Structure formats: C-alpha cells, structure tokens
C-alpha cells in the first residue's frame, strides 16, 4: 500500500521512471508524449545543459538563507530576466512555484499602496474563469467556481469581471475591437462601483490557460486595461505562470499584447520541471516605494531565491534565448495548429481551436452551430484525459470552460523542442480519444 497522499485516491497512476526528450517513460516501459501536463516541460525531460548546471551548483552551494546571503545564480538570473523583461520591470523576487508568485504579488500590491500613503486601497479585481493558484489568496483571486466552492467561507473578498473570451462572449455583429473595449469596460465599471481610491490591483492571465484552454485576449483589450489601471492608480498584475517563458513565442507573453504590467508572475517554464521555481517581478516604482519606505517587503519563505533552483532557472532561460527557441515556438505552433485544424477543424464536436505559439486549446462542444456545451454530468474532459493517456498522450483536458461547470476543453502545451515528425504523436492519440469518448 502506498503512503503517498495522491492527487486522487481513485486514481492508480503508473510510476514515471525516466524522461527522454518529449517523452515520459513508465515502469512498464510505456512511452508517453508529454504535451503539457501543466505546461511545465518546455525543454523536454533530458536537457543535459540544465541538469549539468544544477549538479555544478549543488557541488558549489546547495542553500544559503536569503535573510543572510544572496547567491550568484539568483543574481545572474535576475539580471537576465530583467534585461529581457517588459519595460519598467526592474526587480525579481524568487519563489518556489506559481501560487507563491501570485500570493506574493497580492501582498506586494497591498504593501505598495500602504507605503505610498493610500492604505484605503484594499480591493483586488480579477477575472472569472482564471486560475491563479491554490493557496488562499491565489484561490480567492482565481475565478473558477468549482475550485473555490467549498473553500468560499475562507476566501478573501475579490471582485471578478468577465474574461476576454471571444469565441463565446463576442456578439455576432460585434467587431473584435469593439468586443475588446466592451470587455475591458467591465474593469472600469467595477473600479467605479468599488470606489476608485479603494482598488489596489487588477490581476489577469494574458493567455488564460488551465481554466479556459489557451484563450488570448483580442487585440486592444490589454492596452485599454492598462489605460484604465493608469487612470485610477490601480496596479496591473499579469499572471504568466503558465503562458510565460516562451510558451506563446515570447519570453513574456504580454509582449504580444503590447503592455507592461506593474507586477508579473512566472513559474512553470522558468524551471522547466528541472527545479520547482517561480518568480514575481515588479516595476522600479514599486520597488523604490518600498525601498524608500520601510525597506522591507513583509513576506518571505524559507526557500526563496534557492541557489539550486535559480541555477536551474538560469540555465533554462539561457537555453530559451540562446537556442532561438522563441522563433521555434512560433513556427512549430503554426505547424501544430494547422495539423490540428486539418484533423479536427471539421469535427462536429470541436467548436474552436485557438491559442498562441505552442499553447493551444481545443474547445469541445455538443453542437458546433449553437456552440452549446455538453452536459457536465457526462464528464467529457475527464474521459478525454483518461483516453488520451491510455493512447500515450499527456495533455490537460478541463471542464467548466464556460462558467466553472459547463464546457470542456483540451489544453496542449508540448515541449519547445518537439519536431514536425512528432505532430502525429499528439494528433493521433487525440483523434482516438475523441472517437472513444464522444
């Protein structure tokens, strides 16, 4: 009997024993194409450069508490990230994962306003159908009803506006641009409703991952969001935990939207699975306000700025930049997407194929014409996950796409090193899974 507390007690998962490029191999020798359990493995599972960097760091220094020391890899990684970050971003706060990054972002937003002399700013606005993590603050910010439900009495108060979700929410006669402005208007309306000088921050994923299935905003949406934030002194927090670090063909996903946030969260691809690491980046203005105030961000965990984790992150980001992988993601993304469109573009139950770079979502519907979702009791996403896995494909199907309950999608986030020849390793298992489930 296992003593591990598993994700799900009814699941009896195989034991993963090794990784080779884009594949995971279990104890029986079965190979699985890793098309993004959760968009982590961007360099595949056997990158020698990253593992060597980790070993070299371990041989030098495993750990030194950031209350006393800084470390070489943390300094170098921060330099490299800032050199490539959106305009205005000047500081990096290293944590151990995505939830820690978003949690830290919420606290930093609050402390910034307090130190700036605006302690009345306490409201956070986020979006429905977004996921920002599972700790109490992050879960409060997330807008996924199913994940929140039983914990609701414990959660902090956060307002949720609609996502920018063109496939479902754009009016038939409405242009994409007009829709984007209408969607962004919800932010201004909510700020005004709460009282403009009481709102501290707005948090959003530039491309919504787990809960919507790779949905980018329409053009102009984030530019308008940025304007509204600036107008009311509200901080813009972008959660790029899933969509950042090259996943969309840009090191920072918001580059595609032409905006710079005040606070930016990354994780997943930053460690590429080689180490648990995340980071919260912030503007010089925020940092300086704290530095010139108390000088102390009242936060911190034991393992922030961990030398081995930052050494891994450094090797990963260097690999992303040095190997031309951003360009590769764009090209391979187009190839994978067109293969998916030719395989499933006419499928009666695939309503939408969307995304950016190697971050692609397929929305499953009961009826393509009406876009009506399947009855949630059918558990389509769960069945898809199981069927695709049996066919040797690791992907990320989720239900609740529409409102936390209805709707299903499959999220694909394969390694950036995948080749054109491997496209069938994704398409064929999906095809078989779809025909088995529907």
């Amino acid at each position, binding site marked *: 009997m296992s003593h591990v507390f598993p994700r799900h007690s009814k699941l009896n998962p195989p034991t993963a024993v090794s990784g080779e490029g884009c594949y995971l191999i279990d104890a029986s020798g079965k190979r699985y194409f890793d098309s993004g359990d959760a968009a982590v493995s961007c360099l595949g599972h056997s990158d020698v450069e990253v593992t060597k960097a980790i070993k070299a760091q371990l041989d030098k220094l495993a750990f030194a508490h950031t209350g006393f020391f800084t470390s070489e890899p943390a300094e170098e990684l921060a330099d490299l990230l800032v050199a490539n970050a959106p305009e205005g971003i000047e500081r990096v706060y290293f944590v151990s994962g995505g939830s820690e990054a978003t949690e830290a972002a919420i606290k930093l937003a609050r402390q910034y306003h307090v130190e700036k002399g605006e302690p009345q700013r306490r409201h956070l606005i986020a979006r429905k159908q977004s996921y920002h993590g599972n700790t109490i603050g992050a879960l409060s910010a997330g807008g996924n009803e199913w994940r929140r439900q039983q914990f609701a009495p414990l959660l902090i108060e956060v307002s949720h506006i609609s996502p920018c979700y063109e496939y479902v929410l754009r009016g038939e006669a409405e242009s994409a641009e007009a829709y984007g402005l209408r969607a962004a208007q919800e932010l201004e309306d909510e700020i005004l409703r709460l009282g403009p000088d009481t709102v501290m921050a707005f948090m959003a994923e530039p491309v919504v991952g787990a809960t919507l299935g790779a949905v980018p905003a329409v053009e102009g949406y984030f530019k308008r969001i940025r304007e509204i934030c600036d107008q009311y002194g509200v901080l813009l927090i972008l959660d790029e935990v899933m969509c950042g670090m090259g996943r969309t063909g840009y090191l920072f996903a918001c580059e595609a939207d032409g905006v710079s946030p005040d606070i930016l969260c990354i994780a997943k691809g930053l460690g590429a699975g080689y180490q648990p690491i995340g980071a919260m980046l912030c503007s010089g203005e925020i940092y300086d306000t704290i530095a010139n105030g108390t000088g102390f961000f009242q936060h911190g965990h034991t393992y922030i700025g961990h030398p081995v984790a930052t050494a891994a992150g450094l090797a990963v980001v260097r690999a992303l930049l*040095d190997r031309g992988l951003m360009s590769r993601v764009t090209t391979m993304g187009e190839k994978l997407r067109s293969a998916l469109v030719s395989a499933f573009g006419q499928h009666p139950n695939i309503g939408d194929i969307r995304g950016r770079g190697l971050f692609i979502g397929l929305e499953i519907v009961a009826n393509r014409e009406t876009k009506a979702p399947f009855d949630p009791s059918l558990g389509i996403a769960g069945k898809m996950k199981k069927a695709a896995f049996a066919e040797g494909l690791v992907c990320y199907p989720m239900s609740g796409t529409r409102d936390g309950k209805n709707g299903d999608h499959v999220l694909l986030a394969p390694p950036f090193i995948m080749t054109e*020849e491997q496209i069938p390793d994704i398409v064929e298992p999906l095809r078989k899974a779809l025909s088995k489930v529907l």
Partner: protein
Amino acid sequence: MSDTSPFSLAGQDALITGSSSGLGFEVAQLFARSGARVFINGRSEDRVRGAVEKIASAGGIAFPLVFDVSDTRQMADAFERLKNVIGKLDILVNNVGMRDRRAFAEFDAESVRRLLDADLVAPFLLAQKVSELMIAHQTRGRIVNISSIAGLIAQSGDAAYTMAKSGLNGLTRALAAELGPKGINVNAVAPGFFKTDPNRDAVADPEVAAWLARRTSVGRWGEPHELAPAVLFLASPAASYISGQILAVDGGYLAHY
C-alpha cells in the same frame, strides 16, 4: 525525410565549424532539416545568433558555439560547453578555411603560420577532441573535412592554401586509417567553383563564367546549396562503408579536359 531513410540524421548531433554563414550555414541548415541537432560556430556572436535563430524558426534545433578555431584556449572552452549542452557528438564538419591569394614571394612566416593554424592545425585539434568524445561514447562517428580542389591540383598565386588543403587531404586519409577501427569514418569533400561571398568578384565576371562553361562538365558555377548534400551523404548512414575519400564537388572540373 523519415527516420528510416539512409540519409536521415535523426537523433544525431553535429558540429560544423564556420557555419554562421556561407557554405557552412548551408550544411548546418541541411543537417538540421535532416533531423540533426547542430552546433553553429563562428567568431561573431551576432552572426552565430542570427544563424541559430534562422534554423530554429525553420523548425530545426540549433545551439550557438562561438569560438575562433585558431584559438586553442577558446576551442577548449567551447568544447566544454558542447559537452555540457549535449554530452556527445556524432558528426564533425571541419569547414573553416582561410585563403590568402598573395604571390608566393610576398608571404611572411607569420601569415603562412596563421593560415596553417586555421586550415590545418584547427581541424587536426578538433578531430582529436571530437574523436576522443566519440570513442568514449562508442559513437559511430563521422568526420567530414571541407577541403578544396586546390588540395588535388594547383594554380599560381595560391601556395599557402594549396599546401594546407593538400595537408587536409592527407589528414583525412591518415585519420580514416587510425580512427576507422574505432568506428569513425573520415572523409573530405573538395568543392570547386562556388558562388560564395569571397568569390563575388569572379562571380560577377562574365569571362570567368565563359571559362567555367568550357572547363566544367556541367558548364557553370556551383550554387551555394549544391555542396551541402555531398557533406550530408558522407555524414549519413548511407556512407557507412566509405572512408578516407576525397569527394570532388566541382561540376566535373577535375574529370574534364
């Protein structure tokens, strides 16, 4: 190209020296398209970066390896990096070649040595490092030296280069003999007249074109993309029983009179 094609380089790792532009870049591009992961080498970081970017955006996998082949120290550092990135290597293409067309009488010791360093000592040392790695990993390795028809015949005003390329052909045969039993095939290609950047004046000259029309069997200049397939062939499983050869890629120039 499918994995079962005898010309596929799927799963192989290749270092091509001087591959950020010109014929070396053509070789790197073709290798990448044939499934190899390629190390792009050059002295200019920007040019190497640009070449990596081009290959990556075409769906290939490329790594930068900036170093000057004539600098032993830089070569050693780069080799460490190569081992860190991939740990093994299946193919080495010694492509860097320096040319100095001064008259024999005008050479000084310094410039002859500089040319030999780049054209002869560098491939020698690189082959040494690479073969050591190949042997350690029991790789069925390939070394392809980019020689020249000037390694086989001669003209006036090209003494140092001719000497170097003749030496490279000798090195090719010597290494074929010495490394063959260890599983490494060593060959060379000898390009003739190609439309490369260093040849741009001659390419623009109609008299040269007229002369090539008479002197080569195919009657024209070689296009830049026409060299790489010969290198691919010698590096691929298709050439498993070929070693110690100098393959002229010259439109029939050497066979024709």
